[in-house]
């Protein structure tokens, strides 16, 4: 008989629309992070490091990159005879076929998958946070308290608490009440979107609530369990945890990695973060290159100057080019004599010689000011920018652009230029 004490269900289907063009072709969990990683590497590595060797990854939005990245789970040692990693997309049924309409609905549609492992506990994770966490310790806490649902929480500054789902607990960390984005928070313990359920409890709740449209953990399942009188506990986590939901927080989280001793340390011997790396050659620096306060992935060729930046794998940076405070993702080629300031350049982009990015005054973005802000320039994947183009701040380019797309070879601050694919 197949039996796993705890299996993980990783929600990786969301678009993450606040990352703008970065997620126009890939799901948010597949977005690059920290040079060589993708965001989903963090929860997946946490799983295997915590001894959770069965992970269902729920995909829906743009899953191609995610599927190729996960494969059969070799990089995380999740290629197992029993268990391992399984990608779970929505599927057609004889009746009631539907997309995943909510976080809990996605789990509900995969009850058979979970049942096949006869688990005691289900760990619910989301694929869009950067953190290292031992789920085994959380499980111990769950067992000790005879909890039926444990929610990982972290203390946040009181003034920020109104942006989160807040848990109110008694002195034993038993949850007495909770509120979603309260105007006057009564506690500062914010839910991290990580839950451990007793499988029996969860299954019962999912089946009872199945007809609820957009079935969601925070909105429906947790309140249902609470109203039914299940013991709910809050597990306090005090390590580094970062939601990289917006371009600014994404940029900031990357920049934090280049501090001398970063708060989130990738260089620790234990608790490694694993990822699929396809190219292996070391990186090359030419005689004229300069590099300071940066991390750079394998196989990159640096002929220019790199300061305060996070550079992915297989990137080329041309002669006399200056890259400052920027994120350059895998396999992007930047020509000679370019200047990049506070730019986020996605994968497989070609920036031809003499381009200048992040130049000029800060002007609010005309189309999506809530996405493109903080003075960042954002270039979507596989974009091409012809020679000698200047691009301003809070601007965004996506697609194979030509001279005709620019005025006087310039894209002013705050402009959006999207040529290919779905618009954001």
């Amino acid at each position, binding site marked *: 008989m197949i039996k796993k004490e705890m299996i993980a269900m990783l929600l990786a289907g969301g678009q993450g629309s606040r990352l703008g063009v970065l997620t126009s072709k890939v799901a948010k969990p597949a977005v690059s992070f*920290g*040079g*060589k990683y993708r965001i989903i590497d963090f929860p997946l590595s946490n799983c295997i490091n915590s001894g959770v060797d069965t992970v269902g990854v729920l995909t829906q939005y743009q899953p191609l990159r995610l599927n190729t990245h996960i494969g059969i789970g*070799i*990089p995380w040692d999740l290629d197992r005879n029993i268990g391992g990693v399984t990608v779970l997309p929505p599927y057609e049924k004889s009746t009631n076929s539907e997309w995943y309409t909510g976080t809990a609905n996605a789990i509900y549609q995969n009850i058979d998958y979970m049942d096949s492992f006869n688990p005691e506990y289900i760990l619910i994770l989301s694929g869009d946070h950067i953190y290292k966490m031992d789920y085994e310790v959380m499980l111990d806490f769950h067992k000790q308290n005879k909890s039926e649902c444990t929610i990982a929480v972290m203390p946040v500054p009181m003034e920020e608490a109104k942006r989160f789902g807040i848990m109110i607990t008694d002195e034993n960390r038993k949850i007495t009440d909770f509120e979603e984005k309260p105007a006057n928070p009564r506690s500062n313990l914010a839910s991290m979107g990580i839950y451990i359920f007793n499988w029996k409890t969860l299954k019962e709740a999912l089946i009872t609530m199945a007809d609820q449209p957009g079935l969601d953990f925070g909105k429906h399942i947790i309140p249902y369990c609470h109203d039914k009188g299940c013991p709910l506990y809050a597990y306090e986590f005090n390590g580094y945890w970062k939601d990289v939901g917006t371009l600014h927080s994404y940029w900031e989280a990357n920049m934090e990695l*280049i501090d*001398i001793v970063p708060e989130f340390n*990738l*260089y620790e011997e234990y608790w*490694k*973060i*694993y*990822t699929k*790396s396809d*190219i*292996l*050659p*070391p*990186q*090359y*620096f*030419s*005689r*004229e*290159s*300069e*590099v*300071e*306060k*940066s*991390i*750079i*992935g*394998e*196989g990159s060729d*640096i002929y220019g100057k*790199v300061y305060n930046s996070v*550079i992915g*794998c297989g990137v080329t940076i041309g002669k006399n080019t200056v890259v400052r405070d920027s994120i350059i993702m895998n396999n992007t080629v930047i020509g000679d004599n370019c200047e990049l300031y506070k730019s986020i350049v996605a994968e497989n982009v070609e920036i031809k010689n003499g381009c200048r990015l992040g130049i000029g005054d800060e002007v609010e973005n005309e189309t999506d000011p809530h996405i493109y802000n903080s003075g960042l320039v954002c270039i979507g994947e596989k974009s091409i920018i012809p020679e000698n183009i200047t691009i301003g701040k809070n601007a965004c380019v996506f697609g194979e652009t030509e001279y005709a797309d620019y005025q006087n070879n310039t894209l002013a601050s705050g402009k959006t230029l999207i040529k290919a694919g779905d618009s954001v």
Partner: protein
Amino acid sequence: MRAIGIILAGGNNHRMKELSQKRAIGAMPIAGSYRAIDFALSNMSNSHIQKVAVFTQYNARSLNEHLSSSKWWDFGRKQGGLFVMTPAVTADNSFWYRGTADSIYQNLSFLKASHEPYVVIASADCVYKLDFNKVLEYHIEKKADITVVCKEMEQGFNVDRYGTIRMNEDCRIEDFEEKAVVARSNTISCGIYIIRRRLLVEMIEKCAEEDRYDFVRDILIRYKGQKRIYGYKITEYWKNIASVNDYFSANMDFLKPEVRDYFFKTYPDIYSKVDDLPPAKYNVGAKIMNSLVASGTIVNGTVEDSVIFRQTFIGNNCTIKNSIILNDVYIGDNSYIENCIVESHGTIRANSYHKGENGIEVVVEHTDRYVM
């Protein structure tokens, strides 16, 4: 491909000096992220050879660790796969591998149990790319008994640690000398052979009967008149790394853009075991010129014309010039290293000074590591 592969990775020699104490030459780190045997393995994998045996004997721990999983070279499969053969005591044999031919003899059952008609034999200590299918086509076209891959070296190249060959116009080998004092040819054998499996079994058995153990001396040289032995000339990059100087220069070759393009950016790729290391990190004060740096490294000092392998730490105010720093070396602040190969897992204390005055110096430091 209708062939099985054999990689001879048993040997070692004094020309590697201190570097050989820790590992077989096949496990020597190359070009920042590879080990020498990766080239032979990748060539076999890229030539669609499905079944490969690695014969190893000398200090194979490093090598075994590197080959602990066969998936990196795509040999993790049900049909065929990767086999690592060390000498074993059996009912009728209790010897180490007494030579290359003997190592094949002791594993003759591997050859006999295979069904592929040909065998590709390669050594683990060469850096090159080669499609063995082309060599096999040539072998069949020439109706050869044995084909030896060879390369004509430039005038003045010191051939004294290689086998040299002379061929007629048809490329049939007329003369084969091993490590001649005064060589009569500058075409050297690359240590890569193709031979029909049944013929190999037959010749190896005969050798064993006569108490002969060396593939080159007792098969190639001994049968050069009797058997049709042909040379297959290659002109592309090929280098044997089995001496400190050659090892050093093979690594330094990767600083040349044409060599990097040939190995890293042109099809097919070279594969290696993936280490889960974070990207390299450059702090304030780092200065890198014309150098290769592998992942997991943290640089605070100056690096010039050097190859830095994985997981190295270079302290503040250090200068590394024209040197090779192998895996997992810690270099303390204010150190100066020039013309050196620093052995892996070494710890160089702060304020150290190492300079190879007459050629390349091998630095082996067993100092305890306190901080990291």
